């Protein structure tokens, strides 16, 4: 660098600009928030509380379905160290803690519908005093007949969880003539698949801290969507929004439940407690409270009936999905939409008939969780494909090659796939890397008790919200006098690195290195309401808003540069933090110098970027149309080794390819492929939050197994495919969620390849494999 003259340096930069090189896109840059994390700095909610903070503990329902006859808190209030006991009587506004359908009270009062229902919260000087006093809250119940099986719950005579029927939502896809399709088929294959409750188990549980400050209340908490928490607390308190300041603390994992109703509960309880006691209150769920009282992944019962020609061409697919919604609707009313639209897998099928139901039961409630209905739907769809291949005596790869989505084909809802459909490339990448054909042949000739198998699964995943809501985002940029650029948004970081990605996108649009950027904490009184941080939509939707904010900022500084340099506005270039004239006349400026000039010229350097995705059009009755603006595609192959005498198996190799449009930060993309795959392997192989008669049997990390470092395959080979999409900045597509989807079906199919029998329910325990072999 030192040997280079300023002139040479400028020439080099200019060359970069002419090449249109993207200096900060597709680069494995470090995250902007990593230093505080590796130092163990006090950045999470529970690290930030003052010494005089009081602690809240929940009183949960003793029964899955019962009338509450009375609640007495007098003994609990008399317990040493207890300051207050909150019940529904303490709610000044609406006793409601719901996202979409107002069916869930913050504090249960007339009846309880699950063992996760909150009846009271004890507030005490120490957590263990609150815990002990919680046992002293006396609740008189009259038990009601419960219903736990969602299929039973759909029957008219079933006990009603709420006043109306138990079917909360029915989603349909009707394409072509499914009966005609079955008539055209040479074979009809029918199977039923089941999935379990999965707990997201973020390492940090749901937590919120509240303190009253004059007319306002300040809430600091762990969450995905601070503006929704603000609105929820406003409803409970009966206060206007501007009196409620919600700051998202650094959040220790989220995975979906923290976009759903649990953060409303902890924030509302902390706020009510702070108001009632006049002290700061922390409502931090214990792991047990969290695993009982927060939302989980819906168990599903999925039936497939598929028609296929002898040559492998699919003619018709009829799918019914029944999701166990538990006691409340939550965001689950949208989960069933995504599940039903993706129910047939990534295939072109001329005749489709899908019915998706989300159903109330007296199990604990289920809702948003990474994948949002796709893990259940794709497990069934991709398992069904291997059952079809078996019936046809065809290689499952060939069956997929015949029917898969590619540019020019149409989805189950009739949406045309354009050139951005990278599914063939994804499949090709994992087939080649795994040497699939050779291994398939090799493994078909095994005997002996230890057998290997190889399996495939793939998916399409509609991007961002689509039918789930208005897909918009705001991003603020403001520049300090020293050139430092603050990026602020109501979108949140909880581990994916997506917010650092926004800085990369803004940096590219502005022409200033990412080192100048700093991320501000999301604050509802500072940042625009910007929709939920869900559906992996930060990069795609937020990225466009970040780009917009950066371009607006550029429009503000260009005239200043033009004046100082003495160059036409349209000839001013900003590249890598240097500002110069295209014609190489006049002087060049650094970004800092330009900002200083702007300040002196009284140009305020704040911009608000906005993006709203094009609206998606589909028919409510038939599901037909284009429910999503673009799709992410993925394929995986796994090899397993099964001990046929015991059913024990292990994953030898895992290959996964995703078409992410454009990897803004490939290192962060791989982080999602690894992390999502391992969370998906937990779902596939070991995780089940067991409900027995409405009670959670294993609400702790001793009996609920999540993968440890010794449970993972030796390596996961990842492949990033980039077929640019129409919506995201630089062609980016979403990535964080779908990697969790593939392990379920790919492990199942690999085991079927090894032992000849498939396990049609998750998790695929060794016991189930053993039983399948012995049947």
């Amino acid at each position, binding site marked *: 660098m030192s040997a280079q003259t300023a002139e040479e340096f400028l020439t080099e930069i200019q060359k970069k600009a002419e090449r249109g090189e993207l200096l900060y896109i597709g680069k494995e840059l470090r995250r902007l928030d990593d*230093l505080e994390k590796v130092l163990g700095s006090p950045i*999470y909610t529970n*690290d930030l509380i003052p010494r005089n903070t009081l602690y809240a503990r929940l009183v949960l329902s003793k029964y899955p379905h019962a009338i509450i006859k009375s609640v007495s808190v007098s003994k609990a209030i008399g317990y040493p160290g207890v300051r207050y006991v909150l019940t529904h009587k303490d709610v000044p506004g609406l006793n409601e803690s719901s996202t979409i359908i107002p069916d869930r009270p913050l504090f249960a009062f007339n009846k309880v519908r699950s063992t996760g229902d909150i009846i009271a919260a004890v507030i005490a000087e120490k957590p263990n005093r609150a815990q002990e006093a919680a046992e002293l809250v006396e609740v008189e119940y009259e038990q009601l007949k419960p219903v736990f099986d969602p299929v039973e719950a759909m029957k008219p005579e079933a006990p009603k969880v709420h006043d109306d029927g138990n079917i909360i939502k029915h989603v349909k896809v009707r394409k072509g003539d499914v009966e005609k399709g079955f008539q055209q088929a040479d074979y009809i294959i029918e199977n039923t698949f089941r999935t379990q409750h999965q707990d997201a188990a973020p*390492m940090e549980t749901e937590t919120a801290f509240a303190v009253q400050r004059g007319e306002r209340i300040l809430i600091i908490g762990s969450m995905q969507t601070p503006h929704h928490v603000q609105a929820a607390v406003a409803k409970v308190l009966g206060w206007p929004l501007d009196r409620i300041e919600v700051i998202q603390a650094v959040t220790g994992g989220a995975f979906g439940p923290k976009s759903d109703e649990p953060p409303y509960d902890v924030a509302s309880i902390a706020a009510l407690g702070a108001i009632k006691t006049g002290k700061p209150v922390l409502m931090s769920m214990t792991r047990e409270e969290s695993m009982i009282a927060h939302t989980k992944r819906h168990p599903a019962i999925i039936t497939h009936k598929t028609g296929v020609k002898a040559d492998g061409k699919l003619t018709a697919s009829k799918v019914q999905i029944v999701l166990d919604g538990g006691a409340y609707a939550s965001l689950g009313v949208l989960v069933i939409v995504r599940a039903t639209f993706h129910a047939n897998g990534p295939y072109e099928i001329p005749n489709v008939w899908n019915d998706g139901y989300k159903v109330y039961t007296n199990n604990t409630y289920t809702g948003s969780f990474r994948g949002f209905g796709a893990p259940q739907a794709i497990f069934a769809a991709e398992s069904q494909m291997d059952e079809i291949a078996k019936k046809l005596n065809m290689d499952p790869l060939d069956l997929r090659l015949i029917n898969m989505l590619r540019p020019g084909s149409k989805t189950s809802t009739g949406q045309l796939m354009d050139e951005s459909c990278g599914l063939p490339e994804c499949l090709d990448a994992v087939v080649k890397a795994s040497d699939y054909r050779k291994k398939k042949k090799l493994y078909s000739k095994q005997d002996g008790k230890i057998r290997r198998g190889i399996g495939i699964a793939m998916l399409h995943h509609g991007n961002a919200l689509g039918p789930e809501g208005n897909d918009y985002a705001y991003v603020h940029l403001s520049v300090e006098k020293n050139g430092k650029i603050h990026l602020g948004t109501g979108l949140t970081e909880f581990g994916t690195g997506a917010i650092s990605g926004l800085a990369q996108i803004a940096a590219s649009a502005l022409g200033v290195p990412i080192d100048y950027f700093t991320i501000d904490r999301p604050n509802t009184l500072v940042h625009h309401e910007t929709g939920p941080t869900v559906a992996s939509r930060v990069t795609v939707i937020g990225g466009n808003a970040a780009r917009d904010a950066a371009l607006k900022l550029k429009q503000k500084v260009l005239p200043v540069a033009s004046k100082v340099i003495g160059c036409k506005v349209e000839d001013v270039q900003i590249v890598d933090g240097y500002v110069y004239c295209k014609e190489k006349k006049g002087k060049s400026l650094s970004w800092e110098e330009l900002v200083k000039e702007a300040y002196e010229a009284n140009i305020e350097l704040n911009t608000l970027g906005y993006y709203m995705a094009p609206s998606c059009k589909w028919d409510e009755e038939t599901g037909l149309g284009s429910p999503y603006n673009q799709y992410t595609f993925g394929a995986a192959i796994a090899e397993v080794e099964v001990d046929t005498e015991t059913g024990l198996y292990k994953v030898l190799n895992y290959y996964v390819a995703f078409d992410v449009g454009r990897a803004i930060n490939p*290192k962060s993309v791989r982080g999602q492929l*690894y992390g999502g795959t391992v969370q998906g392997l937990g779902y596939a192989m070991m995780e089940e939050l067991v409900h027995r008669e409405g009670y959670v049997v294993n609400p702790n*990390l001793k009996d609920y197994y999540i993968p440890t*470092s010794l449970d993972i395959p030796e390596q*996961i080979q990842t492949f990033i495919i980039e077929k640019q999409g129409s919506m995201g900045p630089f062609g980016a597509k979403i990535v964080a969620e779908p990697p969790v989807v593939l392990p379920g079906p790919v492990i199942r199919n690999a085991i079927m390849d090894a032992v000849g029998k498939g396990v049609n329910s998750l998790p695929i325990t060794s016991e189930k494999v053993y039983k399948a072999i012995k049947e």
Partner: protein
Amino acid sequence: MLVKVNVNGIEREVLVDPDDRLLDVLRDEFGYKSVKEACGTGDCGLCTVLMDGKPVLSCLVPAFQAKNHKVVTLEGLNSDPLMKKIQDQFRAHQAAQCGFCTPAMEIMGWHLLNRKKEPNKQEIKEAISGTLCRCTGYYDIVDAIYDAGRPE
């Protein structure tokens, strides 16, 4: 009861109840917030600290048992050259996603690298097997510790 304990090289005295956990004393009395609670039942490993050089789960250690012992948290290692190397590798590998398990993972990595020069990946996986992470799938953490154990 009054407990004398050396935390991060500083002699401390603290009044504790019999049911106070070392975890709470470290966080609430001494302000060492790198020590995390994610289960409270000894299953996740995120409250790991070093007691007389050995990893212990501070949620399972009654505070009085730390009497006359030496306790080290991540805050006490932040200026240690080996820990700095580990932290640099965690940043380079994006091994801290949500960051909640990061302090415990770094302590386990540091403890391993002090016992064993240039461990292989299986040895690293074994060393961190008692520490749960829900974000990374462990690969980037293993790579970070692996690279921190190699010569520059």
